């Protein structure tokens, strides 16, 4: 099966032009839920990176044996395997973080980003392209998560990575670490990304 973007194209597409969060609006549940501090966001992004790379690799290797009516089941089983590995590993080595992320690590199983990449890329292209695609998409996901978390943690608790950045006098905007803050920040950042994209497109078109 030929055609489709090359490995390097896949990698860079995932980071910004086809960013899973800001462009495709996939994986919103975990995006909104785990971004009230940067550490949680980074852990989540790392877990997704691991799961996505492994799942894409496996799916890409077995792509010739996939039958159309069984492919979703195979995707889900593959993803679930690696999610379980990631979940248990986090619980074993960074227990407090695993507790803080709660159900959102197991919920990676139903994260649309991963099943989307399996369907769009890994089931159709070779293992190198699939891994590059997985890395690009995960980096894009991580970028979005960290950008959201940076704004929310700074305004909501005056901290970055759990250490004080803003002066003590800073009144914490508690709403920013609560769910409404996630929606507000996401909307505003999405507007910003769209604005920049439109401006760049306008400049290139002119």
């Amino acid at each position, binding site marked *: 099966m030929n055609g489709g973007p090359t490995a390097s194209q896949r990698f860079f597409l995932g980071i910004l032009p086809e960013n899973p969060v800001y462009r495709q609006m996939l994986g919103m549940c975990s995006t909104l839920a785990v971004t009230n501090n940067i550490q949680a966001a980074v852990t989540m992004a790392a877990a997704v990176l691991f799961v996505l790379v492994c799942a894409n690799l496996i799916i890409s290797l077995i792509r010739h044996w996939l039958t159309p009516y069984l492919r979703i089941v195979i995707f889900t089983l593959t993803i679930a395997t690696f999610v379980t590995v990631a979940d248990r590993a986090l619980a074993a080595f960074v227990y407090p973080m695993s507790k803080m992320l709660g159900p959102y690590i197991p919920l990676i199983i139903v994260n649309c980003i991963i099943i989307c990449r399996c369907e769009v890329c890994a089931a159709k292209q070779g293992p190198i392209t699939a891994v590059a695609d997985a890395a690009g998409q995960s980096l894009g996901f991580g970028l979005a998560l960290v950008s959201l978390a940076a704004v929310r943690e700074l305004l909501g608790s005056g901290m970055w990575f759990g250490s004080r950045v803003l002066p003590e006098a800073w*009144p*914490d*905007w*508690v*709403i*920013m670490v609560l769910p*409404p803050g996630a929606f*507000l920040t996401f*909307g505003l950042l999405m*507007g910003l990304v769209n604005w920049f994209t439109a401006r760049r497109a306008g400049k290139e078109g002119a």
Partner: protein
Amino acid sequence: MTDDTLQIQPAPQPSGPVTDVAPSPHLADSGQTTRAMMVDVLVALIPVVCSALYFFRWHAVRQMAICLAVCLAAEAVFSAMRGRRPPLADGSAAVTGIILALSLPATAPWYAAAIGSLVAIGIGKSIFGGLGMNLFNPAMVGRAFVMISFAGALGAAGYQDPQSQIDIMTRATPLTAFQQSGVVASLADLFRGSTNGSLGETSALACLIGGLYLCLRRTAAWRIPASMLAAATVIALLDTGLSPHGWTVLHHLFGGALLFGAFFIATDPVSSPLTHRGQMIFGAGIGAWVMLIRIFSGYPEGVMFAVLLMNGFTPLINRWTIPTPFGGRLNR
């Protein structure tokens, strides 16, 4: 790409009547401009502002100055960012600022007022496309944002300042005092306004004077406050009938922000329904939510959340209550 499609279409011919498309408030009376309405609201707010100044002195001055200045500045900046001429002259930003200031406690720190104003104009209004496009009441969006953000400074306990020179500010608000320790405030105090509370809500008398003026001028749709107070009265009657506890129906009506909310917040023409039946449903909904929050929730007062909740229902209510034209029938 867009150039091609534009060239296919014929040039617009300025012949015949042109349909004006404008954001709400949709006013049949062309003599009534946005500016005139906003001036009316500001006039109606005079008694409320006076009572706030009388009871809270410089705390009221400070709060209103901060909110007014930040709201006007935010309106100017955000309009400029959107490439519009700042519509400061229509007075809507000033109204938002004053109402927000009057809905804050006298003790509110300066940053709460400033951030509230910024959020009210920015997230409450400009982001939706400016005046007439917003889904929610801008002043209440700003207030909700700071209320949740700075719950310690602005929550029920934040209203009290034991060190204050002003006597009423050292006491708990009537609703809080009743909810926590069953203390029933005197009706005369609630009516006059000599109790602690948000700056504009304490005096039932001032709210009634300003509100009646608004309704008589038809700037506010009278159906909204009428149905809101009616619904609140019914639930208050049920509540006091089932468990008599000294906090009477009149206490429910005069206490808290019910009257201020009914006349000045719920009647915002942009975020309330257009049809008469819709306005009745909207008002009744707010009244019911206020009473449910007061009686059953941990919050002593619920006007802000009630208004925001029903604002969310406004498009649906508008769709439900499209009037059937005479002789016509709605197609389903």
